């Protein structure tokens, strides 16, 4: 458990240091995610009992929990949102839908030439608890 947590925190720390030193406009954890990906690829060990994977999968199964404090902040802006409800709601939903469709359709066009490759694990509907 602790070893896995150390790896996650270590990658976040390294990512944050890199952001501080280089000034790239990305959050430290996102850079840390790329670093952990590199670590996992170089290590080539993926047993179910691996501490990084155990701890990481547990964190991911409760990802929504960690957004709650920031999400409650929405209520602090209800007045502004109410005053400009029409442009906010339409622009929010409209640009989301257009972006979603653009990415999905463009990628679908490309992927006709890249087969979905081997393996059946991760078929739709598989639950992570």
């Amino acid at each position, binding site marked *: 458990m602790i070893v896995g947590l150390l790896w996650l925190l270590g990658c976040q720390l390294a990512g944050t240091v890199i952001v501080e030193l280089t000034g790239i406009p990305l959050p430290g954890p996102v850079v840390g995610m790329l670093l*952990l990906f590199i670590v996992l690829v170089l290590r080539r060990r993926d047993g179910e009992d691996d501490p990084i994977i155990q701890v990481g999968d547990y*964190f991911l199964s409760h990802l929504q*929990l960690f957004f709650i404090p920031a999400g409650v902040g929405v209520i602090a802006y209800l007045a502004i949102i109410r005053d400009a409800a029409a442009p906010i709601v339409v622009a929010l939903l409209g640009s989301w839908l257009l972006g*979603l469709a653009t990415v999905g359709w463009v*990628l679908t066009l490309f992927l006709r030439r890249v087969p979905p490759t081997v393996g059946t694990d991760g078929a739709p509907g598989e639950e992570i608890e």
Partner: protein
Amino acid sequence: MSVILWLFVTVAAYELGRWLRARTRSPLAQPVAVAIVIVGALLAVSGTSYDDYADATTLISFLLGPATVALAIPLYHQVSRLKGMVVPVLVALTAGAVVSMVSGILLVRWLGGSDVLERTMASKAVTTPVTIELTARLGGYPELSAAFAIVIGIVAAMVAPRVLTLLGIRDPRARGVAVGAVSHGIGTARMLEESCIEGAFSGLAMGLTAVVTCLLLPLVAYLLL
């Protein structure tokens, strides 16, 4: 006292949301949304300010960092599927980021929203820390843009899989990338429940979209704002 009180309330509200989700089996009952409503109501009833609540729950918001790092794990499981995907994903994400930013700005403008609101809407598709940073640089309301990002993430968690099917997007890789591109971590949390492939590609798209948006936003702002 208030630290442990609000930590308990937040985790309990989340658990209630999970129970509701399991009970109703409805994608509309997203635990994060249920918890925000419950906590928001309790803050209003008890007369607690949001700043006090945010201070009390820094332990929970801090864990978002290691959880974001952990998104490398589903991506690693899909590493064999990444071959030949890099260029298509980057092209799709670039197109999506431009469409999302430009349509967000123009829709606010056409519906009579203010200039500050246009600047706040521009980068709301990316993960909240990046939205805050980019919106501050652009001259919008940083915290409001974070609120937009969270609301759109929750909407995506509720409806994205169904909308993708209606749009005829069935390849799990394309579904994952599309959600991660416009709905960051909260959308990714839902896609992780859908399947390993969709979750992994959603996490990947979330990270890359942040990079692409950082690079493109100055150009979009120069042309439109």
